[in-house]
């Protein structure tokens, strides 16, 4: 998608939180990214280094926790695993599946000094 835009939002939140907590440095940021979401982690990492430059988070490590995909199959009436965005239900093969996990784009925590 637009990783630079997302990274700027991410770094904005991190810097805001860091300022509120009166920290001197942000050493690492932990993200939860959905496995079948729209974000390309490599691209996020690339942007993260660029966007944090000159901020309190400069040089911080970016840890990405991948959240596996899951969905609710309307036909089977149960939660199924999804390996593809808008993919078919692995049980019945139909596409009446609503994604319930795997689309995350979340800042879990940061390690600060």
């Amino acid at each position, binding site marked *: 998608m637009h990783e630079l835009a997302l990274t700027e939002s991410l770094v904005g939140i991190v810097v805001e939180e860091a300022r509120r907590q009166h920290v001197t440095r942000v050493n690492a940021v932990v993200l939860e990214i959905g496995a079948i979401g729209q974000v390309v982690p490599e691209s996020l990492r690339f942007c993260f280094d660029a966007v944090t430059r000159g901020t309190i988070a400069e040089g911080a490590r970016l840890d990405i926790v991948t959240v596996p995909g899951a969905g609710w199959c309307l036909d089977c009436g149960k939660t199924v695993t999804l390996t593809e965005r808008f993919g078919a239900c692995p049980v019945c093969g139909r596409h009446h599946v609503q994604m319930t996990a795997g689309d995350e784009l*979340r800042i879990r925590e940061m*390690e600060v000094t």
Partner: protein
Amino acid sequence: MCTVCGCGTATVEAGTGAAGEAQGHSHDHPHAHDHDHSHDHDHHPHDQAHHDHAHHGHSHDHGHHHADHGHDHVHRGEAIDFGAGLAGVHVAGLDQHRIVRIERDILSKNAAFARANRARLTARGIFTLNLVSSPGSGKTSLLVRTILDLTVRFPITVIEGDQQTSNDAERIRATGVPALQVNTGKGCHLDAHMVGHALDTLDPPPASLLFIENVGNLVCPAAFDLGETHKVVVLSVTEGEDKPLKYPDMFAAANLMLLNKADLLPYVDFDMTACMANALRVNPRLQILTVSARTGEGLPAFYAWIEAHAATASALAVTGTP
């Protein structure tokens, strides 16, 4: 700079009047993304009592302010363990690494603005459609036709999003309704913050229709809630019938799909059935109407859809509950 996407030069262009008379307010909000400037926002009706006003755009959706109870968090036993900081335990006055829980969506800033917009629009019974499509699908032509046909029944206002130019807003104003152009500059989509500013200027009347014509782009606008009632995706028959599969998020986010340029169907190889099947595959609840902005074919069904939903919107504003 836009807080969400970092697009550099968003501007709200002046001139909302029917004849395009200038109404001032041509600003290019030049704030950096890590700002804490405080400027007055009357589109923030929610929960301001308990939070610090200086943080314009600060999300309200985490119930846990670390700063409020001033102790260090050393979360041991988390899935991700940084060795629980250098010291391992908290010793007063000793500098150590610590973990600060954030638990916020990266898009939470936009979500907070969108909630504020939605609360404001819902309270006034304003039925808001966010029109999304690829460039050239005929959104503006469709809008012009719709406005001409519905303006006798509803007060209508329009927010036009484009990277550059105010051409579209001028086309809308030619129909006699107020339109405001928002130029996103480098940005590829409208965000809720821009729309909040546009609402300040445009000030749509109660129980009216508000159309937001998003930037022509089938990717990014899907991810940015603007506070609208519904997203309407426009797909023209001169595009491929597999677009719903190529750009599924937009079709998944929309409530209504308009298949535009139906008058060209005899001249193009467009498999209508396959297109609808593809769209329903990514969004089983999508409603689909076939229309032509040029001939007017199919538009009465679209107008009926608007009237039914607009009636619900104004009823909600009166009763206050869904």
